[in-house]
């Protein structure tokens, strides 16, 4: 420092200077200051933390909590550097459970501002007010009134660091913005902690943030970001290794669920908010496969043993070193691929305007009595319903029935039940009210919900089977009735289980109460005669009940009086419901025929199951269903059946009477539900309340609720899409079940051609006469030598000369070309820099740079393929025949990632759910 020639001498720095220098490192800015104080409060076990800023924190910062307080013996050490109550030794860091551990925060705040502390523990009758000087010594101590807890106030932060002080007052608002986003991170994760933050400027006081201290992250998200944001999220629970779990929430895949910028991405390690650039990058890349233009919202808490990571990296503890980061990232990637796979996407359903008034007739009763019926229509709606089914699978198990095989039947009962409880769900309304007016009336119409899902497939199937079923049904009408009786038994026990939950919300106990009665009557004979088939009863009930329906419809004369009554109460009046009624009867009848002939017809049952449940469930179902039907067929003895029948007749009478009595109640219930309908998010809340005793079910139900309106679309579904027509010479309108989709014909064909070209295009290699010097920088050379394989696969040949001077290690010996385009040194350099980019951050990401190719390629190669794909594709404005359109859709099903064209345009959007239109019509009538 003195003279250039003379080496300066080494001397210790003055203690005060050290203190100031180091304090400035710990407390960088406003957010760091508040962060330290909030963390202290959380470490003290506070359940309420109030942060008050004056003039964005420039004047003062005050953090008051109701934590354990500080006992008087600690006052002298409170603000001394490296004095802490949180660890005793360096090794304690391995098992650290507190946010802080260095004993630097308060001493640093002392050095940078004027610190006062008010505190009281439960052992003191009165609080103490302490003032500290800049070195951390107590300058005044007096008694003051104070609840148990601690208040820390810092005035004139950074007054001892002139540069930062100026900077702070100039950029107070920006600092304040940073601070609020940091505070959000704590507000989201702090469960059971009430967090209030206010800012006072002049005379006006504004509340920045206020959380009620709810015990779930879900509620915190709703409080901090609002319900609309929460609706875009789905819960995340990954087990990425034996010791590491990830929990939290992520944006759903698909358009409109993400954010245009990458804010709202919060990462935690055991609840500590941290920065995770690699994870951030990973989820952003993965999310692109389903939503290329947006960033996901992410709230992810990594739960892992404390000794598996190091937080003592930076003073603000935001950076984390993991002991085995690469394997952690790899398993995280694998787990996340399940969430954001390019094999399916979910889309929000475009919903027509909500109907103003719900027709009063369809109601819980439908559900209570024949839930399985609508389950048929539900399950085709896709995975989400399946989830609901799963939710309840366990609980359904608790019912005394052996569900192992016919679990499906029961699941669907319950799923139906769930759906109904959160009736505000438009989807459900669709199902319930889709029918043309007539059955709105009194209908306990079983058939009505059925129509929806089964409709399309039904039509075909019914034609085929109508005749045989009629004949058979005539023959065995009475026996059919027995079957339906048995099914009622199954249901009743089910309903019994469901009842307590329902009651809370829907007051449907009256309607429900009839069922146990029915059950009692049935039990004796059931037990006596058919115990062997009890476990199969679930399945039978499905069939049998349909028969009940049907026989009323098709074979009225043959049926007994009771049966007729039942029929009328079913109120199956529209042609549609007749159809489905008839359809549903068929399997049952045939089962019965089997019973008589003692020749099982598993194939038919298989058919039933296929028709009844969507493909998602199909595989799992087919087998058990046919199996169980086999079992049934062997068991029953005709005489036994008849006996049951007589009992049953009585019960049906009874049932019907009670139903009629229950009517008004049901209507009332319905209107109640109507009110519930207002908000989507409310559904989740309702659901929660209804099952407080079962945490797991609660979580799963929450999952179901959050995905209320979304449906999953798997790329295989493109194949199932039925072409309706072409729109505007540019778009294909397709239909799957009741959903209309619009497909961009050019984008779709272009993507297909692109994937085809990138598979089939062969890069020819052109050796160079004279190897070209690449002039790579040293770090590029390191990258190149470690990625020779990828470079070679792209058609470049490099030769390495280790003895050459730096920058000349690599010579380009051959370049790739395709048709008239040749690639050169610039392309290989670009490839290397892309590799460098992905290597530095996270090498496992490389495969995600391009969504269609397994390896990286230079951008010009991609551009070339994209441009060729574009030119060879169907253009907007080309008229297409039905077959051509179908072909385009079929091609999409076979692609790796059919959701976007190479330029990022989406290929498919959901247009409308037809049931909403139908519902509208219904209402207009």
């Amino acid at each position, binding site marked *: *420092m003195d003279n*250039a*020639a*003379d*080496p*300066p*001498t*080494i*001397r*210790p*720095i*003055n203690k*005060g*200077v*050290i203190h*100031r*220098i180091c304090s400035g490192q710990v407390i960088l800015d406003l957010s760091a200051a508040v962060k330290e104080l909030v963390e202290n409060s959380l470490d003290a076990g506070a359940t309420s933390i109030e942060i008050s800023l004056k003039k964005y924190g420039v004047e003062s910062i005050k953090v008051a909590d109701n934590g354990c307080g*500080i*006992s008087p*013996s*600690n006052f002298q*050490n*409170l603000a*001394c550097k*490296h*004095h*802490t*109550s*949180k*660890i*005793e*030794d*360096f090794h304690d*860091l391995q098992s650290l459970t507190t946010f802080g*551990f*260095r*004993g630097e925060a308060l001493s640093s705040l002392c050095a940078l501002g004027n610190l006062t502390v008010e505190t009281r523990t439960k052992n003191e009758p009165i609080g103490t007010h302490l003032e500290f000087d800049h070195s951390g010594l107590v300058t005044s101590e007096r008694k003051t009134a104070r609840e148990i807890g601690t208040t820390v106030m810092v005035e004139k932060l950074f007054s001892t660091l002139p*540069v930062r002080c100026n900077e702070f007052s100039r950029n107070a608002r920006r600092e304040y913005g940073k601070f609020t986003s940091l505070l959000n991170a704590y507000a989201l994760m702090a469960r059971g902690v009430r967090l209030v933050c206010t800012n006072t400027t002049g005379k006006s006081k504004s509340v920045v943030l206020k959380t009620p201290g709810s015990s779930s992250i879900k509620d915190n998200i709703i409080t901090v970001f609002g319900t609309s944001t929460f609706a875009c999220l789905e819960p995340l629970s990954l087990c990425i290794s034996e010791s590491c779990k990830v929990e939290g929430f992520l944006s759903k895949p698909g358009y409109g669920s993400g954010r245009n910028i990458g804010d709202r991405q919060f990462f935690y390690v055991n609840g500590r908010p941290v920065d995770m650039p690699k994870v951030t990058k990973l989820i952003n890349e993965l999310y692109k496969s389903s939503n290329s233009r947006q960033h996901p919202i992410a709230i992810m808490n990594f739960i892992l043993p404390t000794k598996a990571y*190091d937080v*003592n*990296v*930076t*003073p603000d503890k935001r*950076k984390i*070193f993991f002991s085995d980061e690469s394997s952690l990232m790899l398993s995280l990637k694998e787990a996340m691929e399940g969430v954001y796979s390019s094999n399916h996407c979910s889309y929000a359903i475009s919903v027509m305007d909500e109907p103003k008034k719900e027709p009063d007739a369809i109601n819980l009763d439908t559900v209570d009595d024949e839930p399985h019926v609508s389950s048929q229509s539900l399950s085709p709606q896709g995975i989400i319903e399946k989830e609901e089914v799963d939710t309840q699978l366990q609980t359904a198990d608790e019912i005394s029935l052996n569900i192992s095989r016919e679990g499906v039947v029961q699941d669907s009962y319950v799923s139906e039940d769930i759906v109904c409880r959160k009736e505000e769900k438009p989807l459900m309304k669709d199902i319930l009210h889709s029918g043309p007016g007539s059955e709105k009336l009194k209908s306990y119409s079983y058939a009505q919900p059925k129509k929806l899902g089964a409709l399309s497939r039904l039509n075909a199937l019914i034609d085929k089977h109508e005749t045989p079923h009629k004949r058979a049904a005539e023959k065995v009408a009475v026996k059919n009735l027995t079957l339906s009786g048995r099914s009622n038994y199954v249901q009743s026990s089910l309903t019994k289980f469901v009842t307590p939950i329902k009651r809370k919300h829907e007051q449907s106990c009256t309607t429900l109460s009839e069922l146990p009665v029915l059950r009692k009557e049935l039990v004796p004979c059931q037990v006596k005669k058919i115990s062997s088939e009890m476990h199969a009863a679930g399945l039978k009930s499905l069939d049998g009940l349909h028969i009940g329906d049907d026989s009323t419809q098709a074979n009225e004369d043959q049926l007994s009086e009771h049966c007729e009554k039942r029929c009328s109460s079913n109120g199956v009046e529209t042609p549609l419901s007749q159809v489905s009624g008839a359809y549903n009867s068929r399997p049952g009848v045939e089962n019965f025929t089997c019973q008589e002939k003692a020749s099982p017809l598993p194939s038919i049952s298989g058919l039933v199951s296929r028709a009844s449940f969507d493909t998602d469930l199909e595989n799992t179902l087919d087998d058990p269903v046919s199996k169980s039907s086999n079992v049934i067929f062997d068991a029953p003895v005709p005489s036994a059946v008849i006996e049951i029948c007589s009992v049953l007749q009585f019960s049906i009478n009874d049932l019907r009477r009670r139903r009629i009595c229950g009517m008004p109640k049901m209507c009332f219930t319905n209107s109640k539900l109507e009110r519930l309908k207002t908000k989507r998010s409310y559904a989740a809340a309702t659901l929660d309340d209804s099952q407080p005793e079962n945490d797991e079910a609660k979580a799963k139900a929450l999952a179901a609720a959050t995905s209320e309106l979304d449906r999953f679309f798997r790329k295989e579904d493109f194949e199932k899409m039925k072409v309706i027509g072409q729109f505007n010479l540019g778009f294909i309108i397709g239909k799957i079940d009741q959903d209309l989709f619009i497909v961009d014909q050019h984008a779709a064909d272009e993507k297909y051609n692109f994937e085809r070209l990138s598979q089939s295009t062969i890069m020819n290699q052109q050796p160079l006469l004279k190897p070209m010097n690449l002039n790579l920088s040293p770090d590029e050379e390191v990258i190149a030598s470690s990625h020779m394989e990828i470079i070679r696969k792209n058609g470049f040949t490099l030769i390495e000369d280790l003895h050459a001077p730096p920058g000349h290690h690599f010579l380009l010996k051959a370049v790739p070309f395709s048709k008239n385009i040749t690639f050169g040194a610039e392309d290989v350099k670009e490839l290397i820099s892309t590799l460098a980019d992905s290597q530095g951050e996270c090498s496992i990401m490389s495969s995600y740079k391009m969504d269609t190719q397994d390896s990286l390629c230079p951008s010009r190669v991609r551009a070339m393929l994209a441009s060729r794909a574009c030119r060879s594709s169907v253009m907007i404005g080309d008229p297409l025949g039905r077959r051509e359109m179908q072909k385009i859709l079929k091609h999409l099903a076979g692609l790796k990632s059919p959701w976007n064209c190479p330029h990022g345009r989406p290929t498919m959007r959901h247009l409308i759910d037809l049931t909403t239109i139908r519902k509208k019509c219904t209402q207009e009538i």
Partner: protein
Amino acid sequence: MSICPLPQSTITIIGASQVITDAASLVKELIDNALDARASSILLEISSNALDFIQVRDNGHGVPAIDHDLICKRYCTSKLRSYDDLKNIAAMSLGFRGEALASAAELSGSMLITTRVEGDAAATALSIARNGDVLRCEAALPFSAA
């Protein structure tokens, strides 16, 4: 748990691991030191895992014998004398806190410094203990950088 002073060893290791977070940050500190010593040539030798062995050689002015005891002591520096110097430090030198070598010694445990100033007949090799004390001080062959 009451508020207690942390043992000195804990304080130093917590501090040191923040200054030197990885091999790259250590190399950075050593290069900074070399540049601050007005070196015109710096030689780096690093083992392939970047942990076993890191050597930085420069032809800067060296460390005079009088400074050897404090060379690896925390908060001892030749670059800063008072807090006010901080205003100008950015133009004068890259380092200023006196933490780099102390942290390196703490985290390595077997640090060796060989230095020679103009006028010395031979270089001096200093073995540094974890706490920054000089364990051994012996004459070494002078070397030339670059």
